């Protein structure tokens, strides 16, 4: 497409110029900035950003401790029992959250619509299974070693898929990734070594025995698995936060906003798209390996397009581009059918209708995206605010993050 004949990239920039100028003059700079981002979440975000660092830390600590204690407390109304073991439900929520965080890198940050993300999850699962299950003819390694291997293999697949396809734009990428997801699933059926639906039993797990001789990480024992995945999730969130507040995150957002302009501003867009794909794939593979370890059994079921779309739904529901939103979206997508087993029949209908309604009435998701893209942005923005000329910093736009440790916020 021609660079010059395209539509105005900032919709209505020209048309609303006069109005905005007037408004800006009246209300002072900055204040009108994030007005469209209304709702209660905005006020929450604003209040959060207004808190001093120590208080943010204190609140975060409480949230993290509560998260760890969740299966131990087993809160009555929230619990998924008696239908489903609550600790395992927590594990499943954390797993979905992890997947959503990984996919958020691809969709939310880089704006690449990946409809075959489940393929990377499958690659991770199969890697862990084939390197630990007695049903596999491969060499065997301890389970914990398979986790980095699964990430590496999934990243490799991400690059292999990404290099040829990421030159394609938007919708083409969607169909190609969708096709890739199907191909991986079908190859799991077709390649004899991957055992098809027969699958791999007794996939490994981390070492350690309980007093009674059963493994700590038994597939019935949700709490240790949940803690493991939650820890991994927090680490991944911290690292994702690091990337977000670096040239990598800025490159991704720039690509999402206007790929041509990003390229012309010196962003090697192709390289960063492949990175987004590879990192997303790596997290997908990681969650796949953890999942394979917990279930202890891997076969070719449930790696289908519908599962991929559920992952996308989790990201979009939470708010594409917001990693905390992705955690929330992923956890909800997993939790609702586990908690309300009576409505399991309706879950896809509810998903469908909810997606439509959310897109129509709150298209930015439950927690709208606002990336903090500068590691030391707070210094500058505070200066602007302090100088008195800038008015109050915009609610979502005051990136109050100076260190990576706040990534879990």
């Amino acid at each position, binding site marked *: 497409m021609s660079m010059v004949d395209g539509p105005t990239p900032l919709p209505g920039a020209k048309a609303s110029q006069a109005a905005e100028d007037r408004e800006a003059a009246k209300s002072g700079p900055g204040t009108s900035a994030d007005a469209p981002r209304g709702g209660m979440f905005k006020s929450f975000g604003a209040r959060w950003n207004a808190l001093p660092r120590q208080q943010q830390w204190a609140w975060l600590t409480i949230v993290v401790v509560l998260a760890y204690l969740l299966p131990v407390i087993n809160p009555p109304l929230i619990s998924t029992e008696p*239908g489903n073991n609550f600790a395992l439900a927590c594990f499943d929520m954390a797993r979905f959250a992890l997947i959503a965080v990984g996919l958020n890198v691809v969709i939310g940050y880089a704006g690449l619509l990946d409809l075959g993300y489940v393929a990377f999850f499958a690659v991770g699962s199969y890697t862990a299974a084939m390197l630990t299950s007695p049903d596999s003819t491969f060499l065997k390694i301890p389970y914990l070693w398979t986790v980095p291997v699964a990430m590496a293999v999934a990243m490799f697949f991400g690059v292999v898929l990404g290099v040829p396809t990421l030159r394609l734009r938007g919708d083409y990428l969607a169909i190609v990734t969708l096709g890739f997801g199907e191909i991986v699933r079908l190859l799991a059926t077709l390649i004899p070594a991957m055992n098809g639906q*027969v*699958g791999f039993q007794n996939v490994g797990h981390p070492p350690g025995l309980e007093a009674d001789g059963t493994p700590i990480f038994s*597939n019935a024992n949700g709490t240790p698995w949940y803690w493991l995945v939650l820890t991994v999730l927090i680490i991944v969130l911290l690292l994702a936060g690091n990337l977000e507040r670096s040239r990598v995150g800025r490159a991704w957002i720039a690509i999402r906003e206007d790929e041509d302009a990003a390229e012309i501003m010196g962003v090697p867009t192709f390289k960063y798209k492949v990175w987004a794909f590879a990192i997303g794939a790596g997290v997908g593979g990681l969650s796949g390996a953890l999942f394979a370890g917990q279930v*202890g059994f891997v076969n070719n079921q449930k790696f289908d397009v519908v599962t991929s779309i559920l992952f996308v739904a989790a990201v979009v529901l939470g708010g594409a581009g917001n990693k905390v939103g992705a955690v929330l979206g992923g956890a909800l997508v997993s939790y609702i059918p586990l908690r309300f087993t009576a409505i*399991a029949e309706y879950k896809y209908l509810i998903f469908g209708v909810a997606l439509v309604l959310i897109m129509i009435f709150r298209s930015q998701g439950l927690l709208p995206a606002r990336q903090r893209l500068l590691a030391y942005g707070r210094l500058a923005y505070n200066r602007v605010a302090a100088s008195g000329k800038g008015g109050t910093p915009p609610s979502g736009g005051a990136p109050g993050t100076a260190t990576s440790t706040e990534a879990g916020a």
Partner: protein
Amino acid sequence: MYRKKVITSLAVAATLGMLLSSCANQASTGGATTGSGNRIDIPALTKIDTPAGAVLPAGDGKGTCPSTTTLGYIGAETGANAQLGINIFNGIQLAINEHNAANAGCQVQFKKFDTEGDPNKATGPVAQAVSEADIIGVIGLPFSGESKATGNIFEQQGLVHITPSATNPTLTENGWTTFFRGLGNDAVQGPAAAKFLTGKLEAKKVYLVQDDSDYGIGLGTATSAALGSALAGTDKVTTGQKDFSAVISKIINSKADAVFYSGYYAEGAPFDQQLVGKGFTGTFVGPDGVKDDQFVKLAGDASNNAYFTCPCIPGELIPTFESAYKKLANAEPGTYSIEGYDAATVLLAGIDKGKQDRASLKDWVKNYDADGLSKHYKWNDKGELQAPTVYGYKIAAGKIVPIGPIGE
């Protein structure tokens, strides 16, 4: 049979080795009139005797047990696999109702856990069930995948479970002492089907088509080995496939006079329908995964060339079971309803005999040796039935009717 296909009603009832295929003399009425002259007509079975000494859930009415005693069903209740689960737990419910009605001193509770038949979702409900100390025995899980994923959880907690429908042979190779299978596995059905094809159906060249499921592959392998030189060729199809034209042209070019489809009715029915539509005049044989009223519905007229094999017992021929089930569920008993009923009966009999904790109930099942309504229940040390039977079925007047035991 263990997978994601809904099996709707076909009444199944049972007898043991003493079934009287010889007394099944009535010719099928109407229906099977498609005129391919080379088709063998095998008369349908109309009644079978139940074993005289079959153990029934009611027992002797003198059982006593704590009111907390609970049996569980773990398996599909919702989702695409729901129908099979409904067939099973209604059978269980019937057994428990009959038991509780007869034994005032022993009111056994019944709890259900939903897995949707999905191995990835099964650990949650299973972990929940084994953690509830009152549950001393379980009927389930119906599908092989979920059974593989969770068998070790039962083993760790020493909780006995009898699957009414999971037929993958490898399930009993895990060294699990808590796993028992309430029917014949695929390794039994395959050779029986091969013998049925080349024997009673007089097929010279059999084309074998299998799907990509665990079940289809396992059964297909067992059958093709048993077919030997009668095998004219093999092909594979995919779950969810709708168009079989490429497979069909290969079959027609191979001049096969029979097709064995190792898979489920969802693909088997359109496959047979398109096969006949393309001018195939031979017979079509499918296993228990294909034997379903849905097959007749979906294949239409084409289904007249179809025969079935099944390690299940024609339950609709046992009037007492059929009427009781109908009263409870407001539907005909479905595939595996009677297996669920019998499995529950085995556990209930143990409870009445005072085996009221997990360890003793497990031992009870291990040493069990008695007739059930459908067959004789005695397991070997791995948890396989010692004498499973395989039945043949055909289509008559748009209904699936039994034609007697095969493969003997």
